[in-house]
């Protein structure tokens, strides 16, 4: 076992031969953050006393949900064979929504630790990220984690890993992030196997941005990997995509707290601070160079983040609209992939149409808005982008069902994805059934090892964003995993289903669905609304319609009696308290025309939960 390095190498003056840049790729919950924690402890940069779980995950939500949203890079000193190395560990996000960020993190490394839960084996996410790593020509170090678990089957999964990446199952390292077993060996293995970075130290500087986070005190902190040349404090740096020039106020490495250095040179990984306040000015994938000696060729791989899922976000209290705008503006500083524009809804008033990378991203953003900015919000049902062509030849890009054009439609194109599902073979039947029900067409099916199957399907994205993942999990007892990638647009037989309350269209409840499902969908939502909307002073008819054709109807009867007769022995205080409670309840209602609609109705009406689970009407 290697001892802890006695002296760390000085950043900006480190020979690339003594640098190892690696990342850890793993499926969500396979213990990546815990393994990272052990590495921090083992290399001695975090002492045992200040250690806390998931040390590198900065946001509260990350720690609560146990997932990593923003990746981080930490420089770890490590001694191997009497030589000191600087190991840069780049922690990557582990969720399908953040694939682009993962790909940039991978591009900053020469090697990848492929971390697999020894009790669960390879999952779709692992596979997706593994392919990404292979595309980036990374050295793959297969590692089985959680070997301390009684349910661990390291032999079985080592075979699986070996067959996947080639090599000997015996080469597969076995570690436990929890106990720390095998972690030192892993660090040694990284030194042995991961190639040192190669770059031209005299060339014009080029640094790739692989992450960019907003810090309310420091402004934007940009994480870079130096490819060529070096950067120094006080230099004028330039972003190659926008040509924007900033002064480099601070440069340093993370170990694991920020440490100012005299610069960064070839192969090193660190951070830059320029005082800009908006992460948009330093986008992931972009190349940083200097104004004085600009590079001519940007690094490849840069792409604008592309929202896949859209949802309208509205304040429950209309007077919160300016606060919502301010909150979104602030969040955008730290999240370059969040896009939004103002939108008005007849039912919900003023709000924003927001684009997200995926459902988790949507959930995280709405949660952050509510938690960090103390807003009460309604998020409309998630939808995707449709390309609609009318008979008269006009084209529409529809991100919101309420923008769906009237008149005769020639064609609707919807976004498609290529989905990869990994599952034990016993569930192949139910998965195929599910995918077919979601309008999927199978691309291929392949056995990975004895009992695991990889299914690839082409599916409409709209079917995936809705509740596909939840259904997949529940139908396979949680064993199946999913990853998907963009696969262009394809024509679909789609119609818009409107919901009418008291004869008035409520745009927030409109949705675009496949023609064959319109009737069932309309019925389901009408029924759900009937349960969720409390009885009003008047009867409220609920109708679902495609165009002018009513396809389902329900009705909420008028309330006839609400008065509490008893006021015994003069306990007026209690009666008043009851009134206060009712007042609070009313505040959480949204007026749609004259109808009071509770917040839950907006969310629940379009979710796939069973109506029996929806809150029972009083």
């Amino acid at each position: 076992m290697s001892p802890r390095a006695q002296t760390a190498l000085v950043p900006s003056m480190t020979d690339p031969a003594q640098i190892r840049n690696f990342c850890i790729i793993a499926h969500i919950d396979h213990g990546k953050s815990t393994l990272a924690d052990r590495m921090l402890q083992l290399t001695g940069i975090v002492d045992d006393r200040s250690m806390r779980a998931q040390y590198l995950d900065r946001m509260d939500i990350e720690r609560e949900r146990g997932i990593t949203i923003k990746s981080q890079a930490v420089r770890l000193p490590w001694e191997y064979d009497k030589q000191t190395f600087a190991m840069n560990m780049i922690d990557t996000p582990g969720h399908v929504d953040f694939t682009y960020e993962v790909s940039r993190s991978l591009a900053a490394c020469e090697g990848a630790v492929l971390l697999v839960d020894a009790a669960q084996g390879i999952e779709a996410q692992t596979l997706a990220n593994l392919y990404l790593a292979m595309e980036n020509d990374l050295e793959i170090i297969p590692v089985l984690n959680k070997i301390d678990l009684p349910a661990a089957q390291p032999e079985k999964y080592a075979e699986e890993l070996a067959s996947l990446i080639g090599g000997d199952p015996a080469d597969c390292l076995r570690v436990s992030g929890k106990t720390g077993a095998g972690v030192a060996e892993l660090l040694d293995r990284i030194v042995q196997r991961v190639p040192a970075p190669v770059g031209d130290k005299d060339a014009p500087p080029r640094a790739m941005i692989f992450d960019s986070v907003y810090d309310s005190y420091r402004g934007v902190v940009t994480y870079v990997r130096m490819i060529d040349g070096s950067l120094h404090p006080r230099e004028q740096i330039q972003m190659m995509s926008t040509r924007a020039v900033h002064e480099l106020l601070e440069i340093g490495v993370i170990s694991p707290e920020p440490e100012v250095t005299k610069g960064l040179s070839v192969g090193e990984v660190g951070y830059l601070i320029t005082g800009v306040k908006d992460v948009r000015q330093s986008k992931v994938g972009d190349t940083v160079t200097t104004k004085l000696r600009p590079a001519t060729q940007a690094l490849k791989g840069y792409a604008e983040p592309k929202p896949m899922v859209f949802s309208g976000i509205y304040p429950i209290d209309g007077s919160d609209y300016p606060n919502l705008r301010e909150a979104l503006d602030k969040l955008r500083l730290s999240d370059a992939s969040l896009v939004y524009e103002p939108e008005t809804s007849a039912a919900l008033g003023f709000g924003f149409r927001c684009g997200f990378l995926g459902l988790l991203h949507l959930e995280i953003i709405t949660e952050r808005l509510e938690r960090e900015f103390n807003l009460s919000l309604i998020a409309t049902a998630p939808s995707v982008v449709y390309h609609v062509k009318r008979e008269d030849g006009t084209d529409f890009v529809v991100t919101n069902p309420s923008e769906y054009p009237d008149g005769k439609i020639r064609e609707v194109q919807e976004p498609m994805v290529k989905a990869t599902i990994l599952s034990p073979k016993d569930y192949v039947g139910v998965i195929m059934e599910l995918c077919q029900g979601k309008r999927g067409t199978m691309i291929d099916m392949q056995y990975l090892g004895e009992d695991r199957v990889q299914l690839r399907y082409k599916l409409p994205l709209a079917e995936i964003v809705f509740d596909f993942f939840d259904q997949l999990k529940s139908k396979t007892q949680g064993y199946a995993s999913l990853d998907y990638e963009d696969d262009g647009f394809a024509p679909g037989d789609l119609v818009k289903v409107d919901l009418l309350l008291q004869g008035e269209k409520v745009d927030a409840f409109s949705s675009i669905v496949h023609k064959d499902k319109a009737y069932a969908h309309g019925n389901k939502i009408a029924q759900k609304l009937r349960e969720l909307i409390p009885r009003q002073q008047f009867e409220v008819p609920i109708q679902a319609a495609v165009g002018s054709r009513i396809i389902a109807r329900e009705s909420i009867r008028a309330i006839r009696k609400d008065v509490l007769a008893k006021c015994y022995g003069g306990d007026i205080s209690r009666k008043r308290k009851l009134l206060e409670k009712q007042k609070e309840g009313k505040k959480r209602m949204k007026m749609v025309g004259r109808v009071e609609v509770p917040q839950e109705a907006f969310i629940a009406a379009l979710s796939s939960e069973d109506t029996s689970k929806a809150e029972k009407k009083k």
Partner: protein
Amino acid sequence: MAGPLPLGIPWPQDSILVPQSEESSSFHAYVHIPFCEVRCGYCDFNTYTASELPGATRESFHESLIREIEFSSKVLAQSAIPKRPFSSLFFGGGTPSLFEVDQIQAILVALEREHGIERGAEVTLEANPETLSREYLQGLFDAGVNRLSMGAQSFDPVVLSTLERKHDPAKVMEFVAVAKEIGFRTSIDLIFGAPGESMESWANTLLVATSLQTEHISCYSLIVEDGTKLAKQISRGELAEVDEDLNAEKYEMATKVFSDVGLDWYEVSNWGVPSTHNLAYWRSQDWWGFGPGAHSHISGNRFWNRKHPSAYATALEAGSPAQGMEVLDNRTRLEERLLLEMRIKGGVPRSLLNELLVSPKKISERIGSGDLVLLPGDRVGLSEKGRLVADGIVLEFLTD
């Protein structure tokens, strides 16, 4: 009195109340007698059967009540609130008719001695027909009780057994007649909406009730309070859930039957010759509630006593039996007025709605929909239809 007592501020150490309103008010007394022979399945009132009460006996409990009466007169004197005789008295419970005549009389004497009772004041006692006799009633009448309120609840034996009322409906009829002979003003209480009660059953109850020709009828829809045996039976599915639509129909039927026999409504749940005491609550007059768990209102101060009779009696030894109080600010007093006065026939003055900044649009919409009617003297009150949704109207008026 159901459920936990409200949280409030503690009773002042010096026992001095600060009047919050300059308006003059009449003065009333509620006397709570916390004893019952059995507890009914729907009941969540503050009442105890003998076995539930170690340390507080029914035979001597009037002494505690008298102690509070003496305490009340001291508080008002210290607070420089002028002495006023009572305009009405009400003995409620529990089952007040479980008290001996002597005990009631001793309380009346104490009330007269400490505060005074107006000539012709309404003095009501709640009675359970099972415990009555002609002699007992005569005794009460001679002691000064002049109004008898009898808990009939229903005349359908099936409904009575659902409510776990053990009395024989024939006894109600018998003693209403006796009470009237003696000279009592009479009232009966009815409850509608018990699980399983049909429209026919209710129609029959109304028919019998009106045939008794009492001057007053209170008619409540059954409220299933959390924690009662009835609530448990419903949640277990042993009894049907309360159907508020059916209750609305029962209420409408009651209104019709009562008005046919000349009993006009004067408050959401009360018909006939208005009870001074009942109206005092809805009009936010001053009253002192004596006894465990009783609530008082003195010029914008609301306070309430400890619930358990033993705790109440012990607290009285040391001073005030109050558990807590609240002092109402102006806005709260106005809101309460709307909440309470809206329920009575005269409705509320427009000026109150203006002070509460209720939008005229909301008011006119409710008039347009037939829930509210304009009344003489620039007042607004509930229509028959509106009476069923009074709480919703008040809620709407007090929210944006």
